[in-house]
């Protein structure tokens, strides 16, 4: 369980997060939606400790990050997996070395144990025969899958994905979305995803948080999103004609 209370974050003059509360539960895929520049990435990075909030608390399993000792923080990092917006694979390492990296950092497994685990997660994300390639030799969708494999290789309790399907075709997007949801369910992970993708919202949004101007404007499920009359949500989600029609049909039924 991940709880966020009253998070503020600004960079110089610009305040990006202005008091956000949220709760994320195990086994559930929660989505953060909002316009480009609304602070989704900053929010996620703050949860991970990459940005220190100006105010507010973040608690993992009931313990605030502020009250953790260095050793507890290290322990926590082992439980966190992150898929960055641009994949953030290490260019100088092969796919296999990339995925093995967290294992080397956090465990004392032997090389063959690590290789087994790497093979297992690469299969899990449907990537075969790419172990010895470098990230630059892979397509965007394959890179995303390697990034997911690297994020889940240590069996994290928390998984964060920053726009896991930006720049992917609709079909690959759905494959990635379903993959994340399956893993979340299978290992009871607390998963938080940033996205602009309305397909994802409809497909896997068990909980949706809409950010606007640094605040949580709306929260609900993918069913609620059809019914809501919150103007900001409606104008954001139903900005395309296709979704306007989908909504119309849904409301008529």
């Amino acid at each position: 369980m991940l709880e966020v209370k009253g998070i503020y974050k600004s960079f110089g003059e610009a305040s990006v997060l202005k008091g956000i509360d949220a709760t994320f539960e195990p086994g559930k895929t929660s989505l953060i939606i909002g316009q480009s520049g609304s602070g989704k990435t900053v929010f996620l990075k703050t949860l991970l400790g990459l940005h220190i909030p100006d105010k507010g608390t973040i608690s993992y399993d009931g313990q605030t990050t502020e009250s953790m000792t260095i050793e507890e923080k290290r322990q926590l990092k082992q439980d966190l997996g992150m898929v960055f917006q641009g994949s953030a694979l290490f260019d100088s390492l092969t796919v296999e070395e990339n995925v093995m990296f967290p294992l080397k950092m956090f465990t004392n497994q032997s090389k063959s144990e690590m290789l087994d685990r790497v093979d297992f997660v690469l299969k899990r994300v449907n990537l075969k025969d790419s172990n010895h390639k470098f990230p630059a030799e892979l397509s965007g969708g394959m890179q995303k899958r390697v990034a997911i494999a690297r994020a889940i290789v240590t069996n994290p309790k928390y998984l964060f994905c920053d726009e896991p399907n930006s720049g992917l075709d609709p079909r690959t997007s759905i494959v990635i979305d379903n993959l994340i949801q399956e893993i979340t369910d299978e290992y009871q992970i607390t998963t938080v995803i940033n996205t602009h993708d309305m397909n994802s919202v409809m497909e896997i949004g068990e909980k949706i948080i809409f950010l606007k101007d640094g605040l949580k404007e709306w929260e609900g499920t993918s069913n609620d999103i059809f019914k809501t009359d919150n103007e900001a949500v409606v104008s954001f989600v139903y900005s395309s004609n296709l979704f306007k029609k989908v909504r119309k049909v849904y409301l008529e039924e």
Partner: protein
Amino acid sequence: MNYIKSIGAYTIMLKSVFKKPQKRKIFWEAVFREIDDLGVKSIGIVAFISFFIGGVVAIQTALNLEDPIIPKDLIGFATKRSMILEFSSTFVMVILAGKVGSYITSSIGTMRVTEQIDALEVMGINSLNYLVLPKILATVFFYPFLVLLAMFLGIFGGWVAGIATDLFKPGDYIAGIQLDFEPYLVAYSLIKSVVFAFLIATIPSYFGYYVKGGSLEVGRASTKAVVWTIVVIIFSNYFLTQMLLS
């Protein structure tokens, strides 16, 4: 004002760099990768430049010594001195600052703008320690060998130039090399190279690590890093020479 701020930030960076590595295995892998990238891959250019500059210095000296009263072994002596004192350390290090410095800034800067540094931090790694300390170890231990190589090949290049041009006799040249050998001068050059190696590893790292923006900024940061590394090398060369030779 900005300069003082940067020097402060650079010093603070060094504090994080000099921490105990968290995982020895990951750290040593990085060290060996850096020795290869920053050191071994520079052997070629250093060898090429030293050999030919040594030849040119010998030829220039020979051409300027028309007067028959000046002993012919001066050519070998002058080539040796200039190779050992300035060329092998300062000149070679300035070239490495260009080659290796821009590589360091662009590789760390790219890691910054593509969130690879964030990814390291999420995995609980002190990214400054992991990225910069191996570079320092690789350059500080490897570059003195490059300097020795440059000395040797430069002097050798002078000898080859004598044979190729017939401007001076190889025997005289060798006598000149053997004349008045001072080991302290070699040590002086090696000490300088250690200091310069440290600068080459750390100044470009600083520029790369704190870059903000995208690939354009990474390119700009690389240029700046090379300029500043060379400026600081030339300055410290001046002070080190005063300290060590006077």
